[in-house]
């Protein structure tokens, strides 16, 4: 297949799909969905100890830490300071487990609980601090091209613009903004990874993002809350492949009028009306 691996700051992955571990009906469903998605990177959150499921089980009993690279997030942080503390705790946890994800973080600094939109100023501030502390920062951002440019300049290993708000299932609302981000951040640096993060509702949303030229997609709710999460995870896997191949293949330009696929010459004599 004419498809290269996804490379992010020394990591290399054959799957371009990152899947979250939140909001599944059970850990068993999560496990099966992750397997069906073919993903190699999973996201997790850092929370106070003693958050077990009903049967007193931990997420960590259901994740093969040798198989997956774990990307800890700073979800739930509304200030740069809290996000930095959360990132340090996540690194400490993954170092303790010997997981390769220990050096990186999915940075989120959110504005409020209703929109869950990124706070651009807090995000930039935390990004600068964490890069300074040696983290590989994958940063969740709005789809604002200028913000994306600032985050890359601050040393982010990947900028991850939202397709639409977290968990909203609205897909890629502003493909033109994503296109500008891709063009701008990849200019003279074609391998700089851009991952569309958040808002995926169904498989075609993933394909749209990949057809635009995104290097990958990160999603969670679209799978976890589907009626059949395991089937949806498989659909997402195929959507990544379809979108990536379509992007590499180069789509035809859109035209206003038809262009015949069958030759117009050599058609049989038209029937004459008598």
């Amino acid at each position, binding site marked *: 297949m004419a498809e290269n691996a996804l490379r992010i700051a020394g990591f290399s992955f054959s799957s371009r799909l990152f899947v*979250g*571990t*939140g*909001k*599944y009906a059970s850990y068993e469903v*999560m496990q099966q969905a992750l397997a069906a998605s073919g993903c190699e990177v999973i*996201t*997790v*959150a*850092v*929370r*106070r*100890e*003693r*958050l077990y499921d009903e049967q007193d089980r*931990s*997420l*960590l009993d259901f994740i093969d830490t040798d198989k997956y690279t*774990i990307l*800890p*997030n700073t*979800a739930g942080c509304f200030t740069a300071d809290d996000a930095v*503390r959360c990132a*340090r*705790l*996540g690194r*400490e*946890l993954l*170092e*303790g*487990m010997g997981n390769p994800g220990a050096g990186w973080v999915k940075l989120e600094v959110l504005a409020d609980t209703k929109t869950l939109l990124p706070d651009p100023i807090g995000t930039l501030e935390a990004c600068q601090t964490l890069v300074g502390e040696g983290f590989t920062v994958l940063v969740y951002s709005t789809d604002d091209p200028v913000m994306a440019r600032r985050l890359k300049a601050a040393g982010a290993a990947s900028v991850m613009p939202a397709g639409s708000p*977290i*968990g909203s299932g609205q897909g890629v609302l502003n493909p033109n903004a994503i296109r500008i981000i891709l063009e701008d951040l990849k200019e003279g640096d074609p391998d700089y990874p851009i991952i569309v993060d*958040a808002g995926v509702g169904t498989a075609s949303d993933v394909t749209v993002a990949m057809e635009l030229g995104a290097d990958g997609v*990160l*999603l*969670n*709710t679209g799978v976890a809350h589907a009626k059949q999460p395991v089937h949806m995870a498989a659909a997402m896997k195929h959507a990544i492949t379809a979108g990536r191949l379509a992007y590499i293949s180069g789509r035809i330009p859109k035209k206003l009028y038809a262009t015949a696929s069958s030759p117009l010459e050599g058609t049989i004599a038209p029937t004459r009306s008598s």
Partner: protein
Amino acid sequence: MNVIVNDEQHRLEDGTTVGQLISRLALTPRRVAVERNRELVPRATYDRTVLKDGDQIEIVTLVGGG
């Protein structure tokens, strides 16, 4: 002395270390990370980090998230 662990009061003997606190709470050390007064306590220093009265401790783990 009293320390606050994840917003709960805990009464501990003077001289208790972070390592001792973790074993008293029956936690698996490799599955938790610890902050003391908002500063990370590196795993390697658990046994020499002695708690003080009024310390605020956060003990966290990994949970499902996107």
